[in-house]
């Protein structure tokens, strides 16, 4: 009886697992199949298996028809710059909030917590006007000049997303729980607050840095609503608006699936490499947030 129950549980899990995995597997497998094979395989288990004449034609077509490599490079630059800068500035603020006493600290902390409920959607429209008025400093004819606006650039996709109240709060919570003895000893030895941050707190905070890096990476790689507004030209376009435009004018499903697989690759790679960390960090973030 017990064994039968267990078998039933596994069968049910497999069925539900199929429902959750099908679209992703279908996308990847179809990207290697010619159009007719995709449709021929569609209604059987073959849809999610790498069987039949597999080809890279879809990928070849995508690279030919769309500047996907440029978008990919842009996304990598935007994501890595925002994540690296974010880790530094967010943890620095969290350090002063959690381990230093200063007047106004409580108000700043309350403001950071309050900002956590504002979704990006609520500010994109006014943010668009703001960045359209901000000048960029450029190099022209041998001198520094103020040029146009921030629109259509990489920095317009990076700088607004560096400081993040939610990540500050995650750092704050982690730092707050580190025993104070370490800082005190260092302080007696004459360490400055920055030295304490750099040589004591940061080395002890690997898990929270990993959590925030993963969450920030996901947030940045999947950016959509902001770049479709702030970036019109191709030069600074990231991958998600790129695939949306490709989807809008393409009828070959094989090519669309190739594009989709290609831009999902980095996320899947990070996800599979750090599954445990990934899942636990998102769970922890959800509970604490």
């Amino acid at each position: 009886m017990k064994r039968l129950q267990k078998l039933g549980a596994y069968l049910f899990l497999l069925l539900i697992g199929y429902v959750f995995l099908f679209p992703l597997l279908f996308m990847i497998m179809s990207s290697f199949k010619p159009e007719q094979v995709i449709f021929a395989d569609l209604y059987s288990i073959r849809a999610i298996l790498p069987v039949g004449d597999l080809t890279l034609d879809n990928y070849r077509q995508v690279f030919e028809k769309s500047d996907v490599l440029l978008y990919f490079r842009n996304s990598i630059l935007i994501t890595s710059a925002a994540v690296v800068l974010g880790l530094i500035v967010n943890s620095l603020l969290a350090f002063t909030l959690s381990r230093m006493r200063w007047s106004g600290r409580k108000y700043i902390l309350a403001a950071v917590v309050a900002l956590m409920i504002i979704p990006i959607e609520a500010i994109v429209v006014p943010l668009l006007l703001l960045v359209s008025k901000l000048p960029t400093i450029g190099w022209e004819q041998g001198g520094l000049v103020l040029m146009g606006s921030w629109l259509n650039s990489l920095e317009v996709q990076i700088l607004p997303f560096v400081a993040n109240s939610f990540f500050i709060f995650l750092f704050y919570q982690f730092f707050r729980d580190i025993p104070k003895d370490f800082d005190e000893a260092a302080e007696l030895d004459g360490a400055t607050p920055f030295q304490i941050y750099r040589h004591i707190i940061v080395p002890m905070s690997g898990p929270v840095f990993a959590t925030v890096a993963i969450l920030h990476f996901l947030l940045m790689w999947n950016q959509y609503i902001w770049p479709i507004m702030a970036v019109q030209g191709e030069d600074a376009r990231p991958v998600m608006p790129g695939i949306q435009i490709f989807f809008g004018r393409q009828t070959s499903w094989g090519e669309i699936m190739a594009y989709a697989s290609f831009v999902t690759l980095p996320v899947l790679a990070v996800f599979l490499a750090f599954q445990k960390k990934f899942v636990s960090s998102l769970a922890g973030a959800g509970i604490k947030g």
Partner: protein
Amino acid sequence: MNASTSVNSSDTLTVSSGRSAETRRPPRKRYVFLMSAPALLGLFMFMVLPFLMALGMSFTDQRLLSPNATEWVGLRNYDRLLNISWLVQEPVSDADNHLKQTADGELVYPRLRSVLRKNPEYKEFKEFTHWSFGDKRVVLLAKDPSFIQSIINTLLFVILVVPIQCGTALGLALLINQKLRGIFLFRTVFFSPVVTSIVVVSIVWSFLYHKDLGLFNHYLNAMSFGLIGPVDWLGDPDWAMPSIVLMSAWQAAGVQMLIFLAGLQGISGDLYEAAELDGAGPWGKFVNVTLPGLKNTTIFVVISTTIQAFGLFTQVDVMTRGGPQGSTSTVMYHAVTKGFREQDIAYGSAISVIFFLAILAIALLQKRFFDKREDA
């Protein structure tokens, strides 16, 4: 400064060490300033300032790129967004006092456009919808009917997606909370849609929803033995929003699943043993132990899912562009359409402010919920 900083990191820190440290290096204030400034500047520039700008601009006629000077227009944007009215129309009768009818036997009413134009009270109003009561027809008017439609669509999405997504998440959490070998693998599988971009998910599901080729219609046809014909999931105004709901719940349930799982693991095993001693079966344990134990988790999950659902934009933008017939336009979709695509930043800002107030209302509701719980 000295007195307050010398006790900074501990109550046991002696005053003398604090003072001697103070003399050897620059004051702590400078460190606090330098270390907190970058993030604070970022939050102010890109969160607080845009919001204040939205508030201010919503009372003007600011456009994204315009040579004309910006002017204050008071509450005009809000009036355009939210003002609704109604009128009652009598059917048209002919000279003999008989009601006029069309060839199909339907009653004829005065042309709404000319009625609205004649009456200054209805200036700028357009028809949103109408109902018939006997002979009479009640026409609901709005200055921006598509915004009212967007509010209704957004509420419909929230009302549908929150229970489906949270229910799915709870079910999945219960499944993976079993002690089975390899269960971690299933956790990863259930979670995989979350890491996939919603843009990519929307594109793949557009294929699954395809009227002629899609899997949904294939299975529907097979399971009903051909009785149920193909449904144009994303092309039918009645089905487009429910289709987006199903996909969205499927994509995001993994996050809430993990939160529920943590909640489940926080319930003490003793409670289950006690319930078992009282003769409770699996269902009894679920209702009397699991559900009460998950109360706080559930409140948190429901509120955060609700806030997220209000911002619905990407799925709509990729799959339906607000159509068919405006049936999937949402508050955020309308804000981007007006504020960005039609360059009416002031109007888009007014929508953003209304959106923000809605989010704030939910957050305050959440706080009241939690406060009440603490009183109890």
